[in-house]
């Protein structure tokens, strides 16, 4: 299979204009005759469904939550980048593009990233017009802050709830289209299969989570905006329901999955406190602007933090990276926290934590300034841990937060299955091996509001789509497959719960395919995942029936997919014999312990094709490579020393 990204030829700043001009248009009067299925209602899905509805298409939008407003985009705190240069501090589209390509450690596609930077400015305009209450200066202009170590102020924000406000904007635009009758909304509905007819994506099979009914929906294009797969680690900062099922089942129907091993571990989360723990809570990265990170010099030092004298503390980030100090990028900060904990110098009951100390800045700036800057975060920390960060340092530890990998898409956001489009975190396109802060929201809305609505139209205009209905054999067999899987899960009646298995799986993936990886460890992990998966299909216990609201059954299907995805992640991590971004292979590091990229051999996106069949369930996936070339941003070793 030849992977053609379909990037137009020409200077990078003209590509998107040119591509749009070359697109064929759908006659406005014909748009309502075309049905588009949008799965997921987060920033990408909701903005796409709303915009497609405005354009006049007949849209069906699906989400597993009780309302589209609850998608996990809502939890994003920090902000959204845009190259507005409102501060005249030297920002530009090119600089945002440059920062994003470099931050992604040269594993993203230049043309896509440039377009993202260009569109960033339109997103802010659109959101302001929708009534998103962005922070303002006294003069009434939009306020900005610098974020994630960027040297310009390009981040727009709405208190610590930027994701919430942007999502509500998109949700309201979506509900407007629901009211107009152009979008039909299907909440509490989960996509369980993709239907491919004559090589094109023509529909989906869903399960109504309240009645258990299996239903088919036919359309001219299918759009997946179903988010990332961080929950493969069990403990993550994702919402509990976030899952990989939609993209995974599309993968099994022929869509290639790119760079599954590129996952982002966020350095500032509240550490795990017990076995009952169901999720991890992120503390905004902005805390690293003033907090100092340290651990005791001596392994096993159990004294209270305030009893450890200055001379016996190791401010390891300041020591190792004198010029960036505590503000090194996420992957570097996370890896270093793991390293000091592995040395036995971690703090807290579990030994898996490092201190983030505000004593110095409270002394320097006064408690009021710190309260004004971080009051809500300190309160959140205290609510969860029952410790007062004004008195004692916070304890933090890295946690999985975002997945850069996802279904492979071309410049038009179309997967390797014609008619199947993938947007937002669910695709692999813009962040390479590491995502910069405040750019996830940007990508979701860029894809949904400004790219997909054009490219879907181009596909529909250029393609002869036969009329189909859900009585077609392909729909019936997909429905039967879904029903069979459900019955199988309910019929095992084993001895362990779904969560118990998920927790064990998460631990394997975290230990071997988390912050640092080795070839031997990954081989080990693949074996362990195999064994556990086999046990899952023999011994899982799923109570209840398929005919009503059954949350255990929902989880059981998702965890079954996580098992398979976990294996692909390890295969991908195993094959990539280099360190880049969030993917750190211990065999590949510089003499002073930094990530060592191998551009000679690995400057490509690794896209995997599913090969297993019922008869040969263990057939290895096949690797396809999309070579990455860098004409505008020259690859260099990232250094934060």
């Amino acid at each position, binding site marked *: 299979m030849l992977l053609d990204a379909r990037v137009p030829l020409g200077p990078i700043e003209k590509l998107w204009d040119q591509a749009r001009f070359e697109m064929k248009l759908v006659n406005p009067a014909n748009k309502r005759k075309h049905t588009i299925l949008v799965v997921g209602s987060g920033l990408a899905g909701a*903005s796409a469904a709303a*915009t497609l509805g*405005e354009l006049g298409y007949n849209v069906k939008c699906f989400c597993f*939550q*009780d*309302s*589209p*407003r*609850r998608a*996990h985009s*809502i*939890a994003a705190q920090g902000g959204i980048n845009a190259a507005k240069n*409102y501060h005249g501090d030297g920002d530009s589209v090119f600089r945002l593009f440059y920062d994003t390509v470099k931050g992604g450690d040269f594993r993203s596609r230049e043309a896509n990233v440039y377009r993202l930077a260009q569109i960033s400015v*339109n997103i*802010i*305009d*659109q*959101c*302001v017009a*929708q*009534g998103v*209450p*962005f*922070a*303002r200066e006294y*003069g*009434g202009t939009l306020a900005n802050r610098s974020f994630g170590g960027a040297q310009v102020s390009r981040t727009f924000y709405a*208190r610590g709830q930027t994701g*919430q*406000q942007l999502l509500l904007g998109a949700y*309201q*635009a979506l*509900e*407007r289209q629901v*009211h107009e009758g152009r979008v039909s*909304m299907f*909440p509490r509905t989960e996509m369980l299969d993709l239907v491919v007819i004559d090589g094109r994506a023509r529909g989906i099979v869903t399960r109504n989570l*309240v009645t258990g009914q299996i239903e088919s929906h036919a359309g001219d294009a299918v759009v997946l905006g179903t988010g990332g797969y961080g929950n493969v680690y069990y403990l993550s900062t994702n*919402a*509990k329901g976030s899952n990989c099922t939609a993209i995974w089942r599309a993968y099994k129907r022929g869509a290639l999955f790119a760079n599954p091993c590129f996952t982002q571990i966020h350095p500032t989360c509240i550490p795990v*406190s*017990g076995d*009952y*723990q*169901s999720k991890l*809570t*992120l503390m905004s990265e902005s805390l690293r602007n003033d907090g100092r990170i340290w651990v005791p010099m001596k392994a096993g030092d159990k004294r209270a933090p305030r009893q450890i004298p200055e001379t016996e503390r190791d401010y390891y980030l300041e020591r190792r990276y004198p010029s960036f100090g505590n503000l090194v990028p996420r992957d570097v900060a996370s890896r270093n926290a793991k390293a000091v904990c592995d040395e036995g110098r971690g703090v807290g009951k579990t030994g898996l934590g490092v201190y983030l100390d505000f004593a110095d800045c409270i002394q320097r700036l006064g408690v009021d300034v710190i309260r004004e800057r971080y009051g809500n975060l300190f309160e959140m920390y205290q609510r*969860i841990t*029952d410790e007062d960060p004004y008195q004692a340092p916070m304890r933090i530890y890295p946690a999985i937060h975002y997945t850069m990998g996802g279904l492979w898409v071309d410049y038009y956001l179309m997967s390797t299955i014609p008619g199947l489009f993938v947007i937002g975190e669910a695709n692999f396109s813009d962040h390479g091996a590491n995502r910069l802060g405040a750019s996830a929201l940007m990508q979701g809305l860029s894809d949904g*509001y*400004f790219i997909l*609505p054009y490219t879907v139209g181009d596909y529909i205009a250029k393609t002869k789509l036969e009329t189909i209905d859900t009585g077609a054999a392909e729909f019936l067999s997909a429905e039967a497959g879904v029903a069979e899987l459900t019955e199988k899960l309910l019929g095992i009646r084993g*001895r362990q*719960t779904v*969560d*118990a298995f998920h927790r064990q799986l998460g631990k394997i993936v975290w230990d071997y395919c988390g912050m640092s990886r080795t070839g031997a460890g990954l081989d080990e992990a693949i074996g362990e995942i195999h064994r556990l998966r086999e046990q899952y299909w023999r011994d899982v*216990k799923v*109570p209840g029936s398929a005919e009503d*609201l059954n949350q*255990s059954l929902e989880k059981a299907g998702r965890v079954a997919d996580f098992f398979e995805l976990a294996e692909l992640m390890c295969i991908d991590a195993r094959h990539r014999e280099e360190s880049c971004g969030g993917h750190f292979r211990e065999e590949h590091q510089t003499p002073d312990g930094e990530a060592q990229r191998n551009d000679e051999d690995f400057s490509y996106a690794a896209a995997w094709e599913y090969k297993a069949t019922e008869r040969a369930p263990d057939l290895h996936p096949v690797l396809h490579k999309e070579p990455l070339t860098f004409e505008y941003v020259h690859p260099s070793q990232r250094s934060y020393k």
Partner: protein
Amino acid sequence: MRLILHVWRQRGAKAPGKMTRYEAADVNPDMSMLELLDVLNEGLILKGEEPIAFEHDCREGICGSCGFMINGIAHGPLPATTVCQLSMRHFKDGQELHLEPWRAKAFPVIKDLVVDRGAFDRIIAAAGYISVPTGSAPDGNTILVNKENADRAMDAAACIGCGACVAACPNASAALFTGAKIAHLGLLPQGQPERSRRALSMVRQWNAEGFGSCTNIGECAAVCPKEIALEAIARMNRDFISASWERR
């Protein structure tokens, strides 16, 4: 610590429900209310019983999925806290907790603690937005917004749509939810052109859904996990009255 739970169990919308008693031993005080239910459910599954259905997703207090009554108080005793962030250390060893779903005609029970809040989506769909098609917006700084108004708009926009306000209200009114959206958009210059229509349409939908009227009791604001103030209702009433006057 040890806790006694009395949980509303109801198999489906039409089935009768009842309170069922459970004992939770070895409760870790750092657990959240939902993690306590997780542990309880794991035990129920292994015993061959059906786990308690409850709604949840982000577990950090922002998605608005979770929520039920604890001893008669929506989201439990801690102010400004959803049940997913309510830790067990706020209860006493041996305490009895009664967990019930939101009770309102417009929020029918689906199963156990899960209710259908689709009515909230329909109130937003009625007019809870600014009509601005994608791509038609001017530069973000073309219209200046007074900072105080932007901050007040943000206060109202913080609503997570959990439904605690309705559950706490003796009239099961959706006034705080509806008012919060009307206040948010009405405080911004971008929201002015549709201000009258918005108030009329949203209030009409709220009535059609079977929510009660507002009699200014204030229980809603007292339990709101995002501390939306009653002022939102006053803003809504002003917009509704003046819009009704204009269109008389």
